[in-house]
Each structure stands twice: as C-alpha cells, then as structure tokens.
C-alpha cells in the first residue's frame, strides 16, 4: 500500500470555498482523522478523495497513481479509484442481503463464485457478522449495519479506507465500544485510513494523527497529544477540549515564559507562545487545569462565583474575574461567593487576542 497525498487541494462551489489549499500526506498504514466543526470542509475533502466530489484544483494521489490533477484535467472516476468508503448512513443497499451487499463489489471485479464466498466469509468474520450473511439491512441494528458497511468497504481490499462519521448514528455507550474495536481492526489490517468526525473525544481516542480543520483550512496537524497539549492557535485550543481566554497585555517576555498584565493590574506568568506576539493577548487555560486555592499568591487571581453545576465526576463553575468570564472544573465543592484560583504557568499559553473564536 502507498501513501495518500493531497497537494494544494481546493474545492470551491461558485463563490464559496469549501476547502482552501490543503496539503496533506498520509503515510501507508496511518490512521488520520480530519476533525472540525460542521461546515469546516472535512467531509468535502474526504469525498473529493473518493471522487464523489469534484475538486477545483490541486492534486490527489495514492503513491504514484494520480486520482485527481486539476492542472492536467485528470479525474479518475470513483469506481476506478479502488477506495473503501463507509458512509455516515452506512448506505447498505436495502434490496440486497448482507452477503449480496458484499458480493456486489466482487462481482464488479469479476471474482469467481468460490473466491467470492471465501472473501465474503473472511470479511464478515473480521467484523464478527458471519451469522448474519442472509439477513437484510432492515433486519439489523445500527451497530450491526455499521459493521456490515465496514466489511463491504474492506471486502475488495481497497488501498485506502475512508470513514465518514461512521459512529455518529450509534448511541453513546456503543459508540465508545465501536471506536476501540475499529482502531484494533485498523491496526491489524494496517490499511491506510482517513476518518472524519466532529467529535474530539473520538478523534483523540482512535487517531495516529489529527488534522484540525476550520473554514476549509488545516489549523493544526499532529498527534492527539500534541493537539491537546500544545495547540498552535486559539481555535484549536478551544475546539479540542475547551479553553478559557483571559484578556490582558503582554508586558515582558523571558525565554519560554511571558508576563501578562490583566485588567485589574494583577500579573500572571504564562507560556510565551509565538514570538511575534505583542500588545493585546489572551491567556488560554483549560478549565480542568485551573486550581482553587485558599489564599492569594503568585499567579493567583480572585474570582467571584456566578453559577455552578454538578457533573458527576467534577463540579463545574462559571466565574468572573480579571480578564473576563471563565469556567473551571474542580473536584472540590466551592462554598463561598469569592474564591482564589491559581492559573499554573505551565498550563497557560498566550495567543493573539484577535484569534479567539467568536462563539467563545
């Protein structure tokens, strides 16, 4: 199997640019996730790889095989790309039994009957659905349909497996189990996989690497750990997990650390972020990293409690203090209206003030 390579891929519909100049390389056997809010262009990118969406310009290739080249006007028909695709709705053909659903791609490849039966059995074995070969899709549960859809996408040994939010129609418990199972299967088959989801927990759990997308661009590409712990911009910091953004002014920079002055004059130390930052900045800190403390001190601000909720494993509080409103998660119940919270410098990163997502 070979690498999937996207070069300067752009997909526009009239004036709307859905995918804006994306370049990406997925090494053979990797599990890459395209993650982003709805409308960010992740599914559009996926379908253009499948050939079901027509890209506007750029190049899509698998190893040396060019699937799409806007410059040369090359576009391979989807049926000749030899890609496996699992749809969000599973798209099992309702008039065919499970066995017939799997046989169809093999018949198109002129595989003879006995060979076909062997492969169908094998593929259904992989997804643990062997007993259901004669059932029709409407007789299966959502989870079973999802497995059959996966088997159908794998039965003809595609060079690349594409998954479009395949777990989003399952209920929460089943979804968690299915993603573990999916990852195990992918590791075993070593099939290059591109996975699309808007669920960050799912992305963190299954991926080798994640490409966080927004407004048709890749904002950050990295391992789940890199994405979560060292987001490169405020959008990623907010979209993966969630972040508080404390407004302030950068007053000093000292190696990896920076000093920021908040509106009430209090001063916080935080990770320096990008070197070109100056003036108005925000300090990003995740709610679970904010510590409730007993008394004032270094990197500690006073906040007043607005509202709170008990979430089972933690308490979540909305507070306001210097720098704005923020949210904290703590295992301790807060009893008074006023409290001190510590923003650990190692958990705080600076971003430009104008890069904060509007919805936040």
């Amino acid at each position: 199997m070979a690498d999937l390579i996207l070069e300067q891929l752009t997909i526009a519909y009239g004036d709307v640019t859905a995918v804006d100049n994306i370049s990406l390389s997925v090494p053979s056997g990797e599990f890459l996730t395209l993650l982003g809010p709805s409308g960010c262009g992740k599914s559009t990118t996926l379908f253009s790889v499948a050939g079901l969406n027509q890209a506007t310009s750029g190049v899509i290739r698998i190893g040396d095989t060019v699937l799409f080249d806007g410059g040369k006007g090359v576009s391979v028909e989807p049926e000749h790309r030899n890609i496996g695709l699992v749809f969000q709705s599973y798209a099992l053909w309702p008039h065919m039994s499970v066995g017939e659903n799997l046989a169809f791609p093999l018949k198109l490849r002129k595989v003879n009957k006995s060979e076909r039966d062997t492969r169908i059995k094998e593929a259904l074995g992989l997804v643990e659905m062997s007993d259901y070969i004669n059932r029709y899709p409407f007789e299966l549960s959502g989870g079973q349909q999802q497995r059959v859809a996966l088997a159908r996408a794998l039965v003809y040994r595609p060079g690349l497996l594409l998954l479009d939010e395949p777990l989003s129609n399952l209920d929460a418990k089943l979804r968690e189990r299915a993603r573990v199972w999916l990852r195990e299967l992918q590791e075993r088959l070593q099939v290059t996989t591109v996975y699309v989801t808007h669920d960050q927990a799912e992305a963190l759990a299954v991926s080798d690497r994640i490409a966080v997308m927004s407004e048709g661009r890749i904002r950050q590409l990295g391992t789940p750990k890199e994405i979560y712990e060292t987001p490169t911009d405020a959008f990623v910091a907010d979209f993966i997990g969630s972040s508080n953004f404390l407004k302030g002014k950068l007053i000093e920079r000292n190696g990896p650390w920076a000093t920021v002055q908040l509106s009430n004059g209090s001063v916080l130390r935080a990770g320096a972020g990008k070197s070109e930052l100056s003036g108005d900045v925000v300090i990003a800190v995740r709610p679970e990293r904010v510590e409730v403390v007993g008394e004032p001190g270094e990197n500690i601000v006073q906040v007043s409690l607005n509202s709170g909720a008990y979430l089972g494993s933690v308490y979540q509080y909305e507070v306001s203090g210097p720098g704005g409103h923020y949210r904290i998660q703590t295992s301790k119940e807060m009893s008074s209206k006023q409290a001190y919270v510590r923003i650990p410098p190692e958990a705080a990163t600076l971003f430009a003030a104008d890069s904060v997502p509007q919805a936040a």
Partner: protein
Amino acid sequence: MTQVSSGALQEAALPVRPKASRSPFIFWTVAILTAVMVIGPLAPIVMQAFLDQPLYVDEAALTTTNFVRLFTEAGMGTIALNTLYFSVLTMLIAQVFGAVMAVVIGRSNLPGRSWMGELLIWPLFVSNLVTAFGWFTMYGPSGYITLGMQAWTGTAPWNLYSLTGMGLVAGLSQAPLTYLMCIGAVTKADAQLEAAARSAGASPMRALLSVTVPMMRPALIYSAVLNFVIGVEMLAIPLVFGGPVGLHTVTTFLYDQGINAAVQSDYGIVGAAALMLLLVVGFLVWLQGRLMRNSDRFVTVRGKASRPSTVDLGKWRWPAFALVFAYLFFTVIVVFAGILMRASVTFLTPLVPFWELLTTHNFELIFSQTSYVRSIWNSVVISLIGGVIGTAVVVMIAFVARRSDFRYSRLLEYIALFPRSLPGIIAGLGFFYAVVWIPGLDILRGTIWILVAAFVLRYIPIGFGTVAPALSQIGAELDRAARISGAGWWTTMRHIVLPLLRPALFSTFALLFIHFFKEYVTAVFLYQSGSEIIGTTMLALYAQGDNGPVSALAAIQVIITALFVFTARRLLGVKIYG
C-alpha cells in the same frame, strides 16, 4: 474479537479494470432524443403559423398575414372570449366543489367517507369524451333526467347547450382533480399543528378552518391553474354541448378547421391559432410555477408525522352525508349509469321503463364492424406498449436529470417537462405536420406508432411526476456507495436504483396506461383507417348521430378501465390516485 486471519485482506488490492465509460453516451442519447421528441412537433407548428401555404408545399413563403386574418376574419375574438369564460367557469366550479369535498371527506367523521372518496375520483379514470357523453345522455336537451323532470314538473331549469352549461359540466368533471390535490394537503397535515391550535384555545372546527385549510393553498393554486389550462384545451365538452348551437372555443375551432373543413383545411389559420394557444398555455404553466415558488411556507410534513384526527360533525353528520351523497349521485353515479343504460337499450326515455327496451344491438354493432373492434384493440395495444415505453423513457430521463453528473441535467428536465404546456390538440397537430413535413417519417403515418410516440411525449411530465418523488426517496448515498465499490453510473442505475424503484415503476405504468387509454384529443389529427382508437371512433359515431353505439363504446372503455384498475391494484399492488 475473534481470531480470524486478516492475511488475505492484506494481499494485493483488487482494482476494477478501467474501460471507456458509456455513461456520456447514454446522457447525450437521452438528452438528444428528448429534445427531438419535444421540439419535433413544435417546430412545424411555428413554421406553419408563418407560412402562406401548407408547409409541405415547396414554394410556401414567409408571411404574418395568418395572424392578421386570425383576428380579423375568423371571428377569433368571440372564440377567445368563449374560451376564457368557459375556462374560468370550469376552474371556479372545480375548485369550489373539489376543495369542499376534500375537507369534508378527508377530515370529518362523515359516514361512508372512504367509499365516497373512492367513487368521487372515478371520473378521473375516463376521458372527458365519456363523461361528456354521459352528461349529454342524462342532462342534455332530450336527456333521460331532463325529460323526466319535464314530465314531472313541466320544465327543466337547465340548458347545457350554453357556455354556462358547458362550464358546469366541465367544472364538475374536473372537481375530482382538485379534490385529489387538496385531499393530500388536508390529510397529510401534521396533526401537531392542529393540536397546537387546540391548546391555544381553538375548537376542533376552528383549528381545521384556521390552520389546516390555509395549508391547502398551494394545492388550490396549483389545481386552479391546471383546471384552467384543462378548460382551455378541452375538446369533448365544447364539442358535444357547444357544437350543436354553434358555440366555439379554441379547440373546437382548431378541430373543425383542421379536420372537418370539407375540401382543404386552412393550414395558415390553424397554425397561427395553434401557436397562440401554445403561448397562452405556456404562459399559464409559467405562472403556475411562479405562484408555487414560495409554497415551502406550507410544507407541513416534517419528520415523523402523525395522522390528524377527524372533526366530529355532530348532528350535521347525516345531513352532510345526504348532501355529499346527492352530489356524488348526480355528478358521478348518474353520469356513468347513463352511459351503461344508453348502451343497453334501443332508445332511452323516462316515459317507457328501460328494461322494456333492453337490447344487445349496440354492442353487436360494435363487434360486427372490424374497424370498431380494431379501435378497441388498438386502444389496448397502444396503452400497454405505450405504457411500457413511456415508463422506460421517463425512467431514463429521470435517471439522467436527477441522478447523474450530466452537465445539462437541469436543461434536460426543463425540456422533458415542457409538454405540460403542450395541449393535446397541438401535440397531435404538431406530430401530424412533422410526418408530412419531415422526409422519411411518412412510414409512421396512419400507424399506431405515431400515436404511441405522441402519447408518450404528451405524458412524459405525468410519468416524471410519479418517478421523480420516488427517486428522491432513494438516498444518494446508495449510488455513491455503489460507485465507490466499483460500479459505473449505468451499472449503479441498473443494479441499485432500478430495483429499489420497482413499486414506482408499476404505478407509473398504471398511470400512463390509464392516460393513454382515455386519450383522444392528441389522436384526432393522427389516426387514419387502421389506426383508430376508441375515442376517435366515438367522435366519428357521434358525428353521425349514432348515440347507441357511442354509448356502447364508452361502456366498453369504462369496463376495460375498471378491470385494469382492479387488476393493477390487486396484482401489482399499485396505488393509483391515493
């Protein structure tokens, strides 16, 4: 996770061997054939309208005098006014009766509403010619009921041989169409909407009138324009009721000029009048589209819809039943009974009990004449073969227009739906001109195949209207899954979409069969000895004043239609009109 070897799946991939795609060839073939079918009959009409001699004459020259003559000589002003009055009246009567019936039958606890609803749509299954003749037999100047009324009260207060009489007959014949369109709107309305009105303090009746009835607006607008257009292009009723007293509408004018003009018909005038009619109908269909544009406001079925409850009529239940039944009795039962009765007696009169005049003579006459028998046979053959061909044509057009990446798919759909604006008489005239004009097409002249072609063309929009909604029920992801699995466009259509479309194919075939079987207007310029159909033979017999055989033919048409509808519903599980 069971331990199954995954080794095999890691072997070399299995690509589909690329071959030259045949889909562009299919796209272009379908598009070009459709365009030729639609433009074929239009071009000669436009040509003829601007030629001073018949268009097959080589030295015919371009002129605009046809239009000048049309408005000055031929009394076109009166004809246009007649047509307008007749069509407006047809529309108003059809809308009022159809809409009221839809609300009462669809949403009240009227006794017997299900069988009465079924009975109400029966006129839709037969041609206007049959209904016109039924009305003529019962309510005409010497009709059974007219004479009975005169014998009983000394006078009959109606005169169908007038524009108002014609409008009344046509309106009551078209009311079922309005009913059919409105019944969907009132019965499919989301029950939660009325429930919301109820909890806001409205009575059941008030909720129905204030919430659901306004929801019928798109259906009312749509059917209003449709009925107006049907009024403009209707031939049978103006011919039967206007002809004897010299009242002409556009269609009877065209019919007389085109067919009955004894020696040589005036081609120029006919072409000009046809073009004017085409423009008027085209404008109306365009207007209909404009009026329907914002109808999303009234889309009520979203997600899981629950069936709305019925409104209790209370003590008005039986009086309402009496009214609805009387309506059905006088406009449907009596009309059909008239045809059957007239067909089985020598002379229909209320003065002698009809069983004393019983005879099989009318049917014997029909079955003794080869040309009459042939017309029945031709009708059946045309409807069967045409129904199959029409279904295939419509499915191919729908596949390319709705399910392909063909660049001109929107244009194709637009062209395919154009025959909505093509009145039957114009379609027939156009095909007639086309075969005399275009070299080589002469072999089609006088065969049933020209009729099949004309009927199929005329009813592409009807068929498309059945196939397209069914097609949009089939998720596009099923196609996409097939494409990515290695199937080309045509393979996907054949193996995935077509099998899923099967119920809709049966419905389309049944609907086309019924339309072809009752069609006659399109055929009046196209049939010759050997290719007559029931409708044209009825017109010929009617012109000779042979009312007995006409009724016998009409009765045969009704019986065959009934058998077909019954069989289609039972065997094919087809839903026809609800």
